[in-house]
Structures are given as C-alpha cells and as structure tokens.
C-alpha cells in the first residue's frame, strides 16, 4: 500500500497566475525514497508543504496511508492540521529552536514518551547523527553541517512514517557523518 498519495492536487497562490502545483498526482510506497527535481519556482517546496499540512490544496486529495488528510471539492477544503499528521520535516533553513539545546530540540517532538524512554531515544538519535558529545550545546554553537544533522535528528526522533526534506543537500559537508546515512537508517 502507498504511504503517500496525491491525486490531482492543485495549489494556486495568486488568482490569475499559473498555479504553483498543477494537477499533481504521485504515490510513494513505504520505504521508498523519492526526490523531486526541478528549477526553483517549479513547486517542489509547495508539494512538500501540501503533504506536511502547512498548505491546503485548492483541488484534489492528499492521503497518508489509508487516511484522507486533505481534500478540496467544489471549493470546500477540509484538512487535518500538521500536528496530527505525524510527518517529519527537515526545513531548508533547519528551523532549529535557538533557545533550546540540541537535546531539547531533539526532544521537542517526544512529549508522548516517558522521561527514561525519552532520554534513551535522544541518545540513540544523537548517536545516529554523530552528535552525542554536543547534546548540551545550543544551535548557534554548531557548524552549518552539524545544524543540518540536528534538524534531521529532530525530524526522525518521533519515528514518523514519512520524512520530508526540503533542499537536503544545500549544506552538503564532507564530515564523517553525512545526512544520508541517518535518513536511510533512522527508522526503528
């Protein structure tokens, strides 16, 4: 069964201008890695935002698993808010919370876990991205590549079925731990 299904999804920001996403249909299977390629302004980010729930479609449907999370029909839009979709997102600007340590950033989405389980999960995830020793640091004390790995770690921590990465290689670094490894191996 498909993990994500978009059918005939259209999103238009300015009436009269061409839509950002025009009648897009796609299906992603569990475990599949799909890359959207295209020039800037071609709707890649908008597509991710529609899946994550930050935008609502003007037409079409979005399904996550067997759950209908957004639908627009005859101008009526119903959408499940992003916090109820369990989709991990790694932002282009990482969006790390500057007032929280790495550990607290990673723990942000783990509110459902008990304290001990949460601590174990934080260690596990920080280990995965190779930042165990830096857990007490704040985001501004890290390099760009390290910040990116924290953003990946934070998105993976609640073990979502789906992770969306917006421009994931905009800060590709040649350090020992890349971004790809945790993304591929981050599921329990």
């Amino acid at each position, binding site marked *: 069964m498909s993990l994500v299904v978009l059918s005939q999804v259209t999103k238009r920001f300015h009436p009269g201008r061409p839509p950002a996403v025009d009648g897009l249909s796609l299906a992603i299977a569990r475990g599949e890695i799909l890359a959207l390629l295209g020039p800037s302004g071609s709707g890649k980010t908008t597509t991710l935002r529609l899946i994550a729930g930050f935008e609502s479609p003007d037409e079409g449907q979005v399904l996550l698993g067997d759950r209908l999370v957004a639908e627009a029909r005859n101008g009526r839009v119903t959408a499940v808010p992003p916090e109820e979709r369990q989709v991990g997102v790694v932002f282009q600007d990482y969006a790390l919370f500057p007032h929280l340590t790495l550990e607290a950033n990673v723990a942000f989405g783990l509110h459902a876990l008990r304290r001990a389980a949460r601590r174990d999960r934080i260690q596990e995830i920080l280990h995965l991205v190779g930042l165990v020793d830096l857990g007490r640091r704040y985001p*501004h004390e890290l390099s760009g590549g390290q910040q990116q790995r924290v953003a990946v770690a934070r998105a993976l921590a609640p073990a979502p079925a789906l992770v969306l990465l917006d421009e994931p290689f905009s800060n590709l670094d040649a350090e020992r731990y890349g971004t790809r490894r945790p993304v591929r191996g981050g599921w329990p």
Partner: protein
Amino acid sequence: MRFLTIGFQTVDASLGRIPSSFDEAARSLGVSVGGTLRRIHLPLMRGSVLTALILVWVEVMKELPATLLLRPLGLKTLAIEVWERTSESMWADAAIPALAIVAVGFFPLFLASRLMSAAWRR
C-alpha cells in the same frame, strides 16, 4: 495610546524576528498551536516583553501632562511634585523628587539595556 506604541514596537519587532518555519517545525513535531506559542514564542519573546514593560514603566513614571489631567484629587506623583515646586521657584525642594525620578529611572534603564543587548546576541 502614547505608551502603547513604545511597548508594542518592542514586542512586535521581536515577534517579527521569529521565522514562520519555527511554527511549522513545532507543529510537524506534533505540538498544537497553543503549545507552540508557549514553548517557542513566549520564551523567545520573554526578553523583549520585559524590556517593553520596563520602558513603559519609566515613561509612565516621568509623565506629567497626562497625569495632571487625569489624576484623582490629592494624588501626587514624583513628576507632579517637581512641577509644583519649580512653578513656585522652590528649586532646592524640587531637587529631591527630581533626583528620585532619575534614581528610580536609572535602574530599570540599566536593566533594559542589558536585556536588549542579551536579546541581540541571539
């Protein structure tokens, strides 16, 4: 209204510095709108809200015309004391409340400037 602008500008500037991707990141991690406000916006704005409070307090304390017009009978603020005594040329007597305004105003401004420089370092 006069004091509102001071407080509002300070708080609004700090709110404007919080990118919308912070909201979206928090919500994608399963936190509601209210939780995002409490765990992201309030802590990030705390410094500037305090700064705004202090600035407004100093402004209110040294305010003269509005206080003169609106005060209940018999109420005297430091600014009114200074004004009454200087209008009667009692310069030496006026100095004490005037110095008190400076003293009471100095400490919060010192605090505010420290808060503001701490906020900028973020």
